[in-house]
């Protein structure tokens, strides 16, 4: 291990840091990565659930003018500003969002009869629920963002300490995947190789994830500690690209959105907006921010700011023409989402996300395996508890997400907004199950259950199609679920084989009659 320049003592400290940051953050990071890898395909999932393709932006734009007019007329709070989400990712039509002075959002969309449909559609939408699990573990409000943001910070520390720790050994072992009789070495090699080979990706995610979750408290801190309470105008300017004008109190008709878009395209040709912000709608000083991605540019969200009344250009901020620091940052944000390169890049992100999830699962297992030397140790209650917690939570999340897809096809659950409770209910059941069984048997059962649940996903599509409610037949999501079912089944089979082995002294051993009474008082389970 010894490397010139790094004291042995330092390495020891970083090993402790790496272990504890991993143990503390590992479980939630597993959920964040697993759900995040699936969120890459949010648009496909939204279409899969709706069973109709997304409306093109041009079609949804027809709803914008009546929607904004009605929202502003009905809700006084929307008169300061109202945002319109256009088809992109989760969104399949136009959705208006506006905020109360305390920051509480309200939502509305347009029904088929032209009436306003108020209310948050998020709890009914599978892709949004999975995205929320990815970003906040489903915990609403600032608490969830701060929790996951802090987890991302701990993850950053785990990365730094992991790199320092394995730097000396890495030059030797990076591409060595010692497949052989020593299963523990294989897991250790896989953990190290995946950790190092996808390191740039992990640094990117720790950083962008943490900043995206924690920007509100961080901006508040910057305002107090750095800018002497003068930070708000800079924030508003950053958010809106112009200084916020005061309303004149004089009503003036707004240009239709089609005309605004035509003006915007004079400045950024081919701009397809995914968000519109109407500030002071209906006032003479009102302006509209059109936000969209610029084709062929790796950078997040170009913006055109126009007067809502005259269409006059107030500001243009192209992703391709930002100051150096800003353009680097906007590419960072774009790199987090991975929606810049079509389906090949989406699949690469999916695989990297799944590999990341594996990293956290294997990290916990390795810590346990390192403590298998003596039989008495492996049945220490806290090793048993961690093994069961890791298996129950991680594999429970896999199971619960597959269950979610099937549940999204059940009108009672999806329309009743019970998707999130379904997820946590499934995880709770998985935890309960793994608490009652030997870890290796719990893992086998949960993987088998995940295989069954995944296989039910295309089945649920078929049922809806056959009963005549659906337009789309088997989509990519169904095929991917089928592939997932096969992988889960193979893993379950592998774990079942492992359960029959008797390596001795590992928490992964299935109990054998000879081992009973050795600190393990539970009744013996029959190994497959």
């Amino acid at each position, binding site marked *: 291990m010894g490397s010139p320049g790094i004291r042995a003592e*330092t390495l*020891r*400290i*970083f090993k*402790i*840091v790496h272990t504890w940051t991993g143990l503390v953050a590992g479980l939630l990071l597993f959920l964040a990565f697993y759900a995040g890898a699936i969120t890459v395909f949010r648009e496909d999932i939204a279409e899969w659930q709706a069973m109709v393709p997304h409306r093109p932006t041009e079609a949804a734009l027809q709803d914008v003018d009546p929607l904004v007019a009605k929202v502003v007329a009905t809700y006084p709070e929307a008169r300061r500003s109202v945002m319109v989400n256009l088809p992109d990712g989760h969104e399949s039509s136009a959705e208006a969002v506006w905020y109360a002075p305390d920051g509480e959002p309200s939502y509305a969309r347009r029904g088929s009869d032209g009436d306003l449909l108020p209310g948050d559609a998020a709890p009914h939408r599978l892709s949004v629920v999975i995205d929320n699990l990815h970003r906040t573990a489903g915990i609403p409000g600032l608490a969830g963002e701060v929790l996951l943001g802090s987890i991302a*910070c701990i993850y*950053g*520390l785990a990365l*730094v*300490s992991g790199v*320092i720790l394995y730097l000396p050994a890495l030059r030797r072992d990076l591409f060595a995947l010692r497949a052989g009789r020593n299963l523990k070495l294989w897991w250790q090699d896989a953990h190290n190789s995946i950790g190092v080979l996808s390191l740039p990706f992990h640094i990117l995610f720790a*950083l962008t994830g*943490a*900043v995206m979750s*924690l*920007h509100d408290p*961080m*901006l508040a*801190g*910057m305002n107090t*500690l*750095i*800018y*002497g309470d003068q*930070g708000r105008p*800079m*924030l508003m*300017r*950053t958010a809106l690209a112009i200084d916020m004008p005061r309303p004149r109190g004089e009503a003036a008709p707004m240009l239709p959105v089609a005309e605004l878009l035509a003006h915007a395209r004079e400045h950024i040709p081919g701009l397809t907006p995914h968000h519109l912000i109407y500030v002071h709608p209906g006032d003479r000083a009102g302006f509209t921010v059109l936000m969209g991605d610029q084709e062929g540019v790796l950078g997040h969200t170009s913006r055109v700011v126009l007067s809502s009344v005259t269409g006059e250009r107030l500001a243009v901020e192209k992703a391709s023409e930002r*100051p*150096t*620091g*800003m353009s680097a*940052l906007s590419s*960072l944000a774009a790199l987090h989402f991975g929606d810049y390169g079509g389906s090949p890049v989406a699949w690469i992100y999916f695989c990297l996300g799944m590999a990341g999830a594996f990293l956290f699962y294997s990290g916990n297992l390795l810590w346990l395996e390192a403590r298998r030397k003596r039989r008495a140790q492996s049945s220490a209650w806290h090793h048993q508890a961690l093994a069961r917690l890791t298996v129950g939570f991680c594999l429970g999340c896999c199971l619960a997400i597959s269950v979610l897809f099937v549940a999204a096809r059940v009108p009672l659950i999806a329309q009743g907004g019970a998707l999130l409770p379904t997820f946590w209910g499934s995880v709770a059941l998985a935890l309960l199950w793994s608490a009652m069984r030997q870890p290796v048997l719990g893992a086998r059962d949960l993987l088998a259950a995940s295989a069954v649940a995944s296989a039910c996903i295309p089945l649920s599509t078929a049922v809806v199609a056959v009963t005549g409610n659906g337009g789309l037949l088997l989509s990519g999501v169904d095929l991917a679920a089928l592939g997932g079912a096969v992988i889960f089944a193979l893993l379950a089979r592998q774990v079942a084989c492992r359960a029959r082995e008797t390596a001795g002294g590992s928490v992964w051993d299935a109990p054998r009659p000879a081992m009973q009474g050795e600190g393990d008082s539970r009744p013996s389970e029959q190994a497959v």
Partner: protein
Amino acid sequence: MAHELPAKTLAGIMLGMPLAFALCGLYGYLGPGTLQDNYLVVLWLLLPVWTAVMSMTFVCRSGLRAWGWLILGNAAGFGLLALVRHWLAASA
């Protein structure tokens, strides 16, 4: 605890975070570009800088030294930040 990790961790969180604000604040005022241009860069620098501070805290020989260095660092950082702001306000 042999490595005094709890004391170091606490120091890194309670004092390392403000130190990161002070260092990034200095970049905000002195870095290339206007205060406005640097605003978001400061936001993105905060956590990498904090991670670096935190990692260096772990390398400190003892918990007490970690607290000492971080108190000194904060005093220097915020002192410098106040000076720079005062100087810029005077020259504007």
